[in-house]
């Protein structure tokens, strides 16, 4: 096998070398291998050395005269020869500026867009995660885990090191106003597992978790908030009003594992040994990862994890058996857990941009074919004058190489702009997004495909076809020079191929655009205009030593009522509501909502837990949520033995048979009794393309616990910039220690909700517009070229009485015929490609025929316009003129 490979490699050598020594080299290698058959070194050495020798031989063959004396020539003369050739190449390219410019632009567009998407795919999907033994790190899936559950898993022998983390909002007071920050609580193993290093000070140690008032800062936070002051280490800052000692700063190169702690973590804290989450199995708080021990396999780890899952279910079936099924502990590689969700969309993008690059390549081939015919005659002339084949080939290589370099350079510039645009438009939630940049590998990629495209799609076909089509290039006069049949067919095939590829792109763009439009038209079931949401952290005051006894839901409600009152007094505010979570708040990721399983009195209760939304009384009025029956609870109702509740229409129908039957029904949630007072219509609480679920709404006063976060919704038609600061001032009036709250208009949240689809539709749309332009250019260019080649025969036909209309019709039908064939092939391609984007569509049937039909119509229209220009050109051919020119 190695000999076969070597034989193939030898074929790549310049001919004189190959013919002289090729057989000898092969025979020698065979002998070497026969002498020491088991030794891999011989084979490896032979293969490694070959490319280098190959490059040297070609360099010698192209740039040096084959004269033994040449070895002793000073180096300068060889350099001079290269410079001379480059200068000659530049002159040659300047003679055909339209050709050179078109090739450079086409290459730039194709290479640029492909490199931009490649930059994203490379950084997000291809680069290994920057952790030691990253491919051996696994994440435990199936939601978050409680600390006791993590302890269960630590019995696994196949995992050597565990690290867990959870992130939450907090407010940081160092100097001046409190800041809203994201803090991660991590276990001892976390930093060693991910190979984190300290920039200043130290990282968390196991002793820290005995006294949890320590913190490590992220590098960015250190820079942003503390101006990179090294003296911060050893100082005390306040987090949620508690003093915390800064022990160190993470290094800038540390990429926080998003699959565990999400993005933008500002500070890192140890576990608190006194916290409820240390012992409470219901506190599903932490994300868990671990590294396989050397020698252990993922399969072993999976088996162990599932046996842990089984044994804990046996001990605690109530908690760990859901609906008759053991709650499993599936393992995923860290890589899959981090980027698994975007793998498919990014691959699709890469595919789309690949199609675009192919279309650009086809156009490059078109251009080179026309160029090759012209060059062929020049080459034949020069050969007749005594030039050597070698130097002619070198000349062509240099010229097309220069085009490749120019195109790749333009492509790199476009890639820079493209990546910038991508990062600006990009929807939230693309993992590792912070690392995306145009760097050396991306530039290398751009240069590589630029040169590859020029040589493979440009020069090679041009040389082959030009050589084949004209037996003696000097004989033809040029004006009447006609291509061979092969070249003609090849050219037509290119047009057909390019139309087909574009149709695939246009159809996909159409489907994605349609699903984006569908999604924008979805009735969310609540008001989106004139409402802003303000997520806030109300740190549980009960844990502050200064305020030990204040822990109660009543206290929590009292504070929020105060905020509500204060905000309600702002001019132009027509309503204020609050709740644990608000509509669209969790768009783009994050963990949403509290779920629980209500038990309906005297009815078959549902089997799965559902979202419970604790909201204040005017929530329904503020968001204009419609009722199928009953109404919201009035303000201030707090029945002693049963709280009012609103359930969703779907749940009412499911349990009570109809909405109206549900009103007055009773259920128990946890230990609290509720009486249904209203049935709300469906709302798209989590996003337009998400399932509505069967939510239950309860008054915040009926909450069994005091949550440490809350979201305020403020109804206001005011659109001035001051509304934000008015709301902040109003909040600070009652809660002076709260960090600066974020103000999210619901319209903005809704935009973010469809950002993914908009983004895909825009990208695919852009690609297909470019592809359509390229197709138009390709069709028009090809037909124009044919018309020029046939000028003489057109002249004769006109002289013999053909009408200009007839001639034009001929050209037009030629173009449309090719396009038609392309459309036919493209439809088949689009049909298969439709399956790939099936899962990404919303409200549109995959392979929706109307969209496909529209795409076909657009392409045929482009082809028609593109054929019409050459057709007109053909029709106005002056017979006398074209014949006289002979």
């Amino acid at each position, binding site marked *: 096998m190695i000999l076969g490979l*070597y034989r193939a490699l030898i074929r790549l050598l310049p001919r004189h*070398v190959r013919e*002289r*020594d090729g*057989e*000898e*080299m*092969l*025979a*020698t*290698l065979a*002998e*070497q291998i026969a*002498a020491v058959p088991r030794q891999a*070194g*011989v084979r490896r*050495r*032979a293969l*490694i*050395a*070959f490319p280098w*020798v*190959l490059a*040297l*031989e070609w360099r010698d063959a192209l740039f040096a005269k084959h004269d*033994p004396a040449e*070895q002793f020539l000073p180096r300068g003369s060889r350099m001079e020869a290269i410079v001379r050739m480059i200068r000659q190449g530049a002159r040659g390219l300047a003679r055909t500026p339209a050709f050179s410019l078109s090739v450079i632009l086409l290459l730039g567009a194709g290479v640029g867009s492909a490199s931009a998407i490649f930059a994203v795919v490379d950084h997000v999907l291809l680069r290994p995660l920057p952790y030691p033994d990253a491919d051996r790190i696994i994440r435990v899936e199936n939601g978050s885990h409680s600390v006791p559950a993590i302890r269960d898993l630590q019995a696994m022998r196949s995992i050597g090191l565990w690290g867990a983390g959870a992130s939450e909002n907090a407010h940081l007071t160092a100097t001046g106003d409190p800041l809203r920050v994201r803090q991660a609580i991590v276990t001892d193993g976390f930093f060693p597992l991910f190979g984190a290093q300290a920039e200043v000070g130290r990282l968390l140690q196991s002793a820290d978790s005995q006294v949890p008032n320590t913190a490590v800062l992220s590098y960015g936070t250190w820079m942003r908030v503390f101006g990179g002051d090294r003296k911060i280490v050893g100082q005390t800052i306040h987090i949620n009003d508690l003093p915390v000692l800064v022990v160190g700063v993470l290094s800038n190169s540390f990429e926080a594992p998003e699959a565990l702690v999400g993005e933008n973590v500002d500070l890192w804290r140890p576990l608190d040994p006194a916290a409820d989450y240390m012992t409470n199995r219901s506190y599903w708080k932490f994300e868990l990862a671990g590294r396989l021990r050397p020698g252990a396999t993922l399969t072993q780890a999976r088996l162990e994890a599932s046996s842990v899952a089984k044994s804990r279910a046996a001990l605690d079936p109530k908690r760990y058996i859901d609906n008759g099924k053991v709650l499993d502990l599936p393992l995923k590689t860290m890589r899959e857990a981090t980027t698994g969700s975007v793998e498919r969309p990014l691959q699709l993008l890469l595919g789309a941009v690949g199609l675009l690059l192919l279309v650009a390549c086809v156009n490059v081939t078109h251009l080179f074919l026309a160029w090759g015919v012209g060059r062929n005659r020049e080459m034949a002339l020069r050969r007749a004058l005594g030039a050597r084949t070698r130097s002619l080939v070198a000349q062509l290589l240099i010229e097309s190489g220069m085009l490749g370099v120019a195109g790749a350079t333009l492509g790199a510039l476009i890639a820079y702009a493209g990546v910038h645009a991508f990062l600006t438009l990009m929807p939230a939630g693309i993992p590792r997004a912070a690392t995306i940049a145009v760097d050396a590998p991306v530039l290398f990629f751009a240069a590589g495909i630029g040169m590859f495209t020029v040589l493979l799609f440009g020069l090679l076909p041009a040389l082959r076809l030009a050589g084949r089509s004209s037996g003696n290039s000097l004989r033809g006069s040029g004006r009447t020079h006609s291509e061979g049949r092969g070249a003609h067919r090849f050219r037509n095939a290119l047009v057909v191929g390019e139309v087909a590829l574009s149709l695939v792109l246009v159809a996909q763009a159409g489907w994605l655009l349609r699903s984006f439009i569908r999604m924008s038209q979805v009735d969310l079931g609540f008001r989106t205009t004139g409402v802003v949401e303000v997520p806030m952290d109300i740190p549980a005051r009960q844990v502050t030593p200064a305020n030990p006894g204040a822990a109660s839901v009543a206290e929590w409600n009292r504070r929020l009522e105060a905020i509500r009152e204060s905000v309600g007094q702002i001019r132009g505010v027509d309503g204020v509501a609050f709740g644990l979570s608000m509509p669209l708040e969790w768009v783009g990721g994050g963990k949403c909502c509290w779920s629980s399983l209500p038990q309906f009195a005297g009815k078959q209760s549902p089997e799965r837990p559902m979202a419970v939304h604790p909201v204040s009384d005017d929530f329904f009025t503020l968001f204009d949520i419609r009722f199928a029956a009953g109404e919201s609870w009035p303000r201030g109702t707090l029945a002693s033995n049963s709280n009012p509740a609103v359930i969703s229409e779907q749940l009412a129908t499911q349990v009570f048979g109809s909405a109206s039957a549900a009103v007055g029904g009773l259920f128990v949630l946890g230990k609290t009794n509720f009486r249904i007072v209203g049935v709300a219509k469906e709302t798209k609480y989590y996003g337009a393309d998400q399932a509505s679920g069967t939510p239950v709404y309860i008054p915040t006063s009926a909450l069994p616990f005091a949550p440490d976060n809350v979201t305020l919704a403020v109804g206001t038609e005011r659109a001035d910039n001051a509304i934000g600061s008015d709301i902040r001032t109003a909040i600070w009036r009652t809660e002076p220690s709260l960090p600066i709250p974020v103000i999210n208009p619901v319209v903005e949240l809704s935009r973010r909700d469809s950002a993914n689809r908009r983004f895909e539709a825009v990208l695919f749309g852009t690609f297909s517009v470019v592809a359509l332009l390229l197709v138009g250019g390709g069709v028009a260019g090809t037909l124009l070229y044919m018309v020029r080649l046939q000028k003489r025969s057109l002249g004769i036909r006109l002289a013999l009485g053909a009408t200009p209309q007839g001639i034009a019709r001929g050209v037009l039908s030629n173009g449309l015929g090719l396009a038609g064939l392309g459309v036919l092939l493209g439809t088949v391609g689009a049909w298969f490609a439709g399956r790939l984007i099936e899962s990404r569509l919303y409200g549109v049937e995959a392979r929706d025929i109307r969209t496909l039909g529209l795409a076909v119509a657009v392409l045929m229209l482009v082809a028609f316009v593109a054929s019409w220009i050459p057709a007109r050109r053909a029709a106005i051919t002056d017979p006398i003129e074209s014949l006289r020119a002979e």
Partner: protein
Amino acid sequence: MTNSAVTALAPRDLLILAVLADGPSHGYGIIKSVEERSGHDVLLDPANLYRCLRRMSADGWIGEVEVPGADERRRTYRISHKGRTILQAEVHRLESLLRSINPSLAGQKR
């Protein structure tokens, strides 16, 4: 060619010349001898070997011999007069170099 025209030869070239100075050899023979002489220090692959041989032939350091009755495909190389001169010049150069170093080396040993 004078001594001064030959600056230091690459070990590979020197070894190939030395092998051929002991008698004509073909491709694999050269590889094996070079390997043995250099104590497996200089390992050759066919591509580099034949590139060297081409250059040396072109420069007239080595030539080919017709071995009657041998496998026609296999080419056998011999050292030329010019090649021998170059080899001697290089050996001479290295010896004088070693002589100039040796006393100090000996001094260090002691």
